[in-house]
Every structure is written in C-alpha cells, then in structure tokens.
C-alpha cells in the first residue's frame, strides 16, 4: 500500500462521494416511488424539497469527479519513480490490473454525472417536472458505478507495491525481474489521423445542420461521442508524438506536465466538455416530446450543440497547429 498524502486525499474524496451518493440514492428511490405531481400533500412537498438535495449532491459529485480525474493522473505520475521500468503515469497505471479500468471508469462516471446535470437543468425548466422519472432511474444506474469505481480505487492502491529495498539483506536486484512496461497499445498513425479529421469534420457538419434545422439530434450526439473516442485514441496514436517530438513516446499523460506548458489540461478539458455537451444533446432529444418542454428543449439543445462544436473545434485547431509547427514528421 502506498501511503502517499495524495492517495489518502483521493481516498477520502472517494469515500465521501460514495457516502453522498448513497444519500442521493435513498432520496432518489423515495422520490421515484412516492412522486405525485398533482398532489399538494405534505409528503409531495417534502419530496420536492428533497430534489434540491439530490441535485446539489450531484453537482458536487461531478466537480469532484473532474478534479479527481486530473489529481489521479498526477498522482500516478508522481508515483512512477517507485516502480522500476515505469517512466511516467502510464507505467504506474500498468502496475496492476486495476489501473486502466479505474481511469476509464472515472471518465465514464464524469460523463454520466454531466449528462444527469443537463437532464436536471432541463427538468427544472418544465413546469411539471417532466423528466423526474428518467433522472432518478439514471441516478440509480450511476450510483453502483461510482461504488465500483471506489472499489477499483482501493484494489488498485492496495495492490501497489513499490519496488523498494525491503530487507537489509536482500536487494531488489535480480536480473530476471521485469519492470513495469510503459508502453501503451497504440493504433497506426496514418489511418487514425484520417479517421480523426474525418469524424471531427462530420461532427461539425452534423452539428451545424442540427443547429439550423433542428433535426438529426441523435445522429449528432452519436457522432460527437465517436469523435471523443477517436480523439482519445488519436492522442495516444499520433497527437502526443508531436508534443514530445519523439516518435516513440505515446504516453497521453505527460502532456499534463509543466514541460509542455500544461497543454494537456486544455486539450482534455475541451475534449471532456465537448463529450458531455454532445451526449447531453442526444439525451435531451427524447425530451422534446414532453409538453412542458416543447419550447425549452430545442433552445437548450442548440446551446449544447454549439458548445460541443466550439470545444471540439478548439481541440482540433490546437492539435492541428501543433502538428504543423512541430519539428517532427511521421510521413515516410
């Protein structure tokens, strides 16, 4: 077990989140079961008050997820020196089987919390809480995922054993012992580059079409999510290479470091932001049918779609500029 202050702080944060979500879940179930919009009974009024508690909790959870995502990667990076063979965060995450699943789950939970908050926002604009059931069903789905994330977190950090000299008579040293691999599976750069630019372009077109005509919400949303996935793969496959100016350094975490001007933060925040707003657009598509939201949702969706386009555009431009101006060519 690595008893690093950062690990402890992440653990405390994780446990607090679980506790808060448990509260949210209990209230959510109560709301799902007892909700009766038309009634003015005290029970209904009490339930309506509870909805505020749940949305407050979810807002905190989402901010926590975002910050802890970056803090987690940073910690993994700081700990890399404890594992022989680990050059950076990528190596630390490889140290045991829970590292990458934990990271992926963290991202998934962030996206889900974001979508929940978007649905919640739309719900408050309707005068009859039209999305209440959908929201709380989604909540019931999110909570076990966050619990799973905490479980992965504990398993990961408990399973980490630093390669240190543990006995004065022995030494780590043994030629057969392999260190932790720092390599990351990466896709070939040529096709990935093509896929990245084309899916981004398609997303932009679909988004503009959606903003003008108001049609094709689901298509746009699906495309934006595909862009997110391909962009992540592209970061590993070729984008990072241009930042490090090294054809072999595929680690997507080193761009978060000071040496590269913390550019990684901007890239990841635009990408994650765009993913959330894109998913939100799709999630709201079915809400158009609700009477009380008929006028509200399309405006909301347009705003979200515009945000997605702007964020992804920022990402693509930053990356393209880097690719043009870096001292590296992957061609030939």
């Amino acid at each position, binding site marked *: 077990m*690595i*008893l*690093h*202050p*950062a*690990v*402890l*702080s*992440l653990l*405390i*944060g994780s446990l*607090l989140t679980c*506790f*808060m979500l448990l*509260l949210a879940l209990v209230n959510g179930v109560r709301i799902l079961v007892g909700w009766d919009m038309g009634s003015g009974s005290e029970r209904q009024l009490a339930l309506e*008050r509870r909805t*505020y*508690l749940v949305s*407050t*909790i979810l807002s*905190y959870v989402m901010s*926590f997820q975002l*910050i*802890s995502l*970056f*803090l987690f990667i*940073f910690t993994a990076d*700081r700990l890399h*020196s*404890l594992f*022989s063979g680990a050059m950076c965060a990528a190596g630390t995450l490889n140290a045991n089987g829970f590292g990458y699943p934990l990271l992926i789950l963290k991202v998934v939970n962030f996206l889900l919390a974001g979508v929940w908050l978007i649905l919640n926002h739309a719900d408050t604009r309707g005068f009859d809480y039209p999305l209440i059931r959908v929201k709380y069903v989604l909540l019931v789905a999110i909570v076990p995922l966050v619990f799973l994330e905490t479980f992965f977190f504990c398993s990961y950090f408990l399973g980490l054993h*630093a*390669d*240190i*000299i543990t006995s004065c*008579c022995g*030494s*780590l*040293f043994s*030629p057969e012992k392999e260190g932790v691999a720092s390599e990351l599976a990466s896709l070939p750069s040529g096709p990935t580059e093509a896929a990245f630019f084309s899916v981004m372009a398609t997303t932009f077109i679909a988004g503009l079409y959606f903003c003008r005509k108001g049609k094709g919400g689901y298509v746009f949303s699906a495309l934006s999510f595909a862009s997110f996935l391909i962009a992540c793969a592209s970061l590993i496959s070729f984008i990072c290479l241009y930042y490090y100016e090294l054809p072999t350094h595929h680690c997507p975490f080193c761009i978060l470091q000071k040496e590269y001007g913390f550019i990684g933060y901007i890239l990841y925040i635009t990408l994650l932001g765009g993913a959330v707003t894109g998913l939100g657009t799709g999630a709201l598509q079915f809400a158009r049918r609700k009477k009380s939201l008929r006028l509200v949702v399309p405006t909301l969706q347009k705003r979200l779609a515009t945000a997605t386009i702007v964020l992804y555009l920022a990402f693509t431009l930053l990356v393209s500029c880097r690719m043009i101006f870096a001292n590296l060519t992957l061609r030939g």
Partner: protein
Amino acid sequence: MNRGFERHRSIIDFSISSLIRRKGKNLSLLAVYTLVVFVIASTIFFVQALKREAALLLGESPDIVVQRLVAGRHDLIPIGYVEKIAAIRGVSDVKPRLWGYYYDAAVGANYTVMAADSDPPPAGGVRLGNGVASTRRLSDGDVLTMRGADGTPALFTVEKVLPEASELVAADLVMMTAEDFRTLFAFPDGRATDLVLSVSNPRETTTVAAKIVRLFPDTRPILKSEILRTYDSVFDWRGGMLVVILSVALLSFIIFAWDKATGLSAEERKEIGILKSIGWETADVLMLKFWEGTVISLSAFLVGTILAYLHVFFFSASLFEQALKGWAVLYPRFRLIPVIDPYQLAVLFFLTVVPYAVATIIPSWRAATVDPDAVMRS
C-alpha cells in the same frame, strides 16, 4: 447570461455582508479551519521539501555501491575485488571507500567518519561538520581528541569546519586522511568499507550488477535507482502516516463544521425565512450558502497555506522540531528550499476544503428549504 451574472454578483455581495453580520461565529469557524489547513499544509510542504532535498543529494550518489555480506551481515570488502570489477564492460570507474561510525562518549553523539579520497586534509588534520564542531565547541586550529580502537587517544587538528549550508548532509561528518582512518580504527589492510562504481550507460547498471554478483557471490550491489525509490517511498510513507494521524484532527474539524452549519441562530433562521418570503427561491438560498462556504473556505485555505509556507520555509518547521528530533543530539539547523507546486495545493484542497464542503451540504439544504410562509405563520 447577463442575468445569471448579475444574480450571482448580488448574491455574493449579500453573502459577504451576511458573513460579516455574524462575525463571532464565522471568525471562530475561520480560525479553526485555518489551523487545520495550516497543520496539514505544513506537513505536506515539509515532507515534500525534505523529499526533494534527499532526491537532489542522492542524485549525486554513486551509480552502484558494492558491499560484502558475511552470514547476512555487512562485512569489509577486499580491495582486490576492484581490479576484476573494473574490467567489467560498462564500468567507467571503481573506487574503494573508507568510512564508519564513531561514538563520542563525551557528548553522547555518533559521528560519521570518512576518509577523503580527493583533496584530503593534511596528515593529522580533520574537517568537521558544523554539528560536530558546535557540540564539541571546536573551531579552526583546535584539537579534537578521539579514542582509537586500541584505547589510546588520537589527536587531530581541526583544519576546517564545513560550512553551515551543508549541515543537512554533513552535520555529523569528520573527514580525515585514509592513513589516519586506518590507524584510528585499526582497519585491516587490503580492506575497504565498500566500493563505489560509475557506470557509463545508466541502462547498463542492472547488467553490470548481475555480472558483479556472478564474479563475487558474497557481494551485494546496491543501485542508485533502488536507493532513490526506497527513500521516496519512506518519505511518502512518513508523510502519509502523519496525514493519517492528522485525520483525527480533520474528523473533529468536520464535526465542528457540521455543528456550526446546523446550528443556525434564531436570527439566521428568521433571515432566511424573510428572504424566502420576499421572493428568493430555494436555489437562491442554496447559492447564498454556497458562496458563504466558499468565501470561508478560500480565506482559510489562503491564510493557512501562507502561514504554513512561512512556517516551513522561513522558520524551518520549528513547530515540528520536537517531534522530529527524536534521539538525535546533533539535530541540524536547516533552511529548506521553498518548493510548492499546484499538485500539493490540489492535494491540500482535497484534504481540507472537500470534507468541509460535504459537511455543509445537508445543513445548507435544510436551511434553504424553509417554507416561504413560515415567517408569516410564526
């Protein structure tokens, strides 16, 4: 957009004025909060700074140190090994090292005695670390008496006292010539304490170490990277242990914060009731409570962090001195190099602000969901 901004601005203004209106309660909360931040921040900064110092120093340590083990215990290594080891491909330099410990009964302190291999002091002369010099009240030109292995006293003239800046590393150091060293300790000829090697290609250290063990199975090569990792780990562990201990304090703080937040005075309750009755909705009051909490958190965080910074880097963590001193008689005075990075601040934030925010969620919500007509009914 504009509406939202104006709304936030008005509510923030009101939250600051309402914090000031309840000075007593908020000042006591702020004081405790700042204290908690201060203590945790001091710990984190201190451990990080020490870690960095250690890493810098250990960066200078040799690539490989070869020790000899007999029956699992450290034994003296034959200098004859040097030739064969130097012949290994990749080894750029091999040197024997002479060093050991000396217990000075007069002051009850342990010194590290070392034979200087380059630029030695004159025969019969010693260079002393600051800690030794001040404990024995010696300065340049004075005489240091030590007891040799055979019981006879040995006299050394102090050629130089090492500068204060080196105190962290060299406080307890006594440097002399190799001959004086061997005489003092009746050190067997042809032996050394250990061997230090430089390896030209850092990637080869593991291979070289393997070859050494094959050549001389009674040796134990220690790699620099292993030392660095171990020290890192120990510091992290120490830092972590401290934080765990502090978590008791943290827990009390959370309970305190919860209590303060739940314990709305009648005045406060009435005020929120009034706000709700004149047209503020629950979300507005929640926002008010949120900004109140944020102002307090940020103030405590800022002040606590600045105080901790001053404490650790200008006062050398004097509050921790008693706890750290332990058995050490020669406790070095030191000035640590100020180093703070956003990462430490983020960790600190998670350990202090996040628990506070969570502790206030339910009390704030309770306060905000008061009925608008409650103030009419009472």
